[in-house]
């Protein structure tokens, strides 16, 4: 226990002198890095605009309120598209994520040396690129529209679903698998009767969780032209129709809250 001698008595301290010096040095380095970063941001900023910001913000606020409620009649189709992008994207990604997860889990992979690293690479690569970037790419390849959004969401979700799923597969109870194997089951029968029932609740939870995230992400895919309500948002922003923008933002907010509520309910029922 580190102690400090003061007037002949020992006083408790949290760290030894060496530890506290190292601790301060770490903080100092962190502070220096932050200062450099802030300096760079500050240099790249037009401070006049920043000092002007409160006025601009209140200006935008007065333009944006009240929202143009009539516009909601034109939002039905975009909302349906958004829902389709999220749902179909999630379904496709689940179909693709299941094999990847089985190839990536160390207890089910056919080859730890060759196939598992490839599966893990697929997981990292699809996870680390945002769905908007996937959408940009797919629009360049297959043209703008809802389909590009569906594919973007599907690709982006593979990594997330496969990662959570292969972690669930690695945590299964090996005894049950062994019991099925002992009955003389084939490899696929072991999969169907020993492994799948154990990961089914996790799978359903992951699916609903990702669907909730995908609703959020699909609301903004339209900004790059991939369909959904983001398309309306971007066209309203381009013509500075602030009352429409505020209505669309409200609709997105409601959609996000509803999807989160649904996903929480369903996960609560499963787990």
């Amino acid at each position, binding site marked *: 226990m580190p102690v400090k001698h003061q007037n002949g008595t020992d006083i408790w301290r949290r760290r030894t002198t060496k530890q506290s010096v190292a601790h301060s040095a770490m903080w100092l380095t962190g502070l220096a890095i932050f200062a450099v970063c802030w300096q760079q941001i500050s240099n790249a900023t037009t401070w006049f605009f920043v000092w002007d910001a409160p006025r601009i913000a209140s200006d*935008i606020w007065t333009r944006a309120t009240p929202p143009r409620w009539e516009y909601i009649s034109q939002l039905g189709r975009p909302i349906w598209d958004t829902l389709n992008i999220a749902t179909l994207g999630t379904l496709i990604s689940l179909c693709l994520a299941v094999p990847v997860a089985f190839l990536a889990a160390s207890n089910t992979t056919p080859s730890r040396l060759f196939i598992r690293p490839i599966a893990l690479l697929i997981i*990292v690569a699809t996870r680390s690129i945002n769905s908007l970037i996937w959408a940009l790419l797919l629009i360049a390849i297959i043209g703008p529209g809802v389909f590009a959004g569906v594919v973007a969401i599907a690709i982006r979700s593979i990594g997330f679903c496969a990662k959570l799923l292969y972690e669930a597969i690695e945590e299964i109870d090996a005894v049950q698998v062994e019991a099925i194997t002992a009955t003389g089951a084939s490899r696929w029968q072991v999969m169907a009767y020993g492994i799948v029932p154990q990961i089914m609740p996790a799978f359903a939870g992951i699916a609903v969780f990702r669907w909730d995230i995908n609703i959020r992400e699909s609301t903004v895919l339209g900004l790059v032209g991939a369909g959904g309500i983001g398309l309306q948002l971007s066209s309203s922003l381009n013509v500075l129709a602030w009352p429409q923008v505020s209505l669309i933002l409200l609709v997105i907010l409601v959609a996000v809250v509803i999807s989160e509520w649904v996903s929480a309910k369903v996960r609560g029922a499963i787990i």
Partner: protein
Amino acid sequence: MSTELEAILGKTWRRPPFVTNPMLRWGLLSAFCAYMVAAYMTIEINWSRVYEGLDRGGQFILAFMTPDFVSRASDIWSGLLESIIITVAASVVGILISIPIGLGAARNIAPLPVYMICRGIVAISRALQEIIVAILLVAIFGFGPLAGFLTLSFATIGFLSKLLAEDIESMDRSQAEAVRASGARWAQWINYGVQPQVMPRLVGLSIYRLDINFRESAILGLVGAGGIGATLNTAFDRYEYDTAAAILILIIVIVMALEYISGIVRARVQ
């Protein structure tokens, strides 16, 4: 012999269904089929356009084999550096702000009015998409990394405060109470009773958030909030797939490195 066993004997075993209630099971299944039909009817896919695009898709995949880091090197590096700067600054500020809000959003240490306010902040921050916040902040503060920095800081608050508050709510009460019983002031109570219990998770979450912030910073450039996104967007618009592939590879490598570091850090603190 028990009646239960008698009822089963002589019948082939069938796998129990995942949803036990048959009404619910068939209801869900038919609703799902109805939805799929409706979705299929309304979605428009221009298959000829898709078919034409496959060529370019192939080109893009080939571009990953020959990424071009050189011809736009200065744009790529300045964009990437800006992304990293935004990420670091926003993570630091976001974490610093989210600690008091996280304390306020934990029901077991905050009074009800503070709790309501902090939970409200968390809810707003979580409900708003990063990219939407970025659009609004670019409109207010002008183009540049400041808007991106503020966006990510704001998003960090919602994420970190919520998880920190949940961790504080599930902490061991007796340790905090022991510190309080020794006559500690409020700040000492937090510092010696609460903080040591939540610190490992806070460090882990902070590193994780750093990772998320970097990924998000890659798209902020699309709406003019600074970072690598602007370069990437230009590369796609000009069909310079080799440059785009180079940028994507750099992003993937950095994310992998961050994930690796965060794994080490989390293993050390936990």
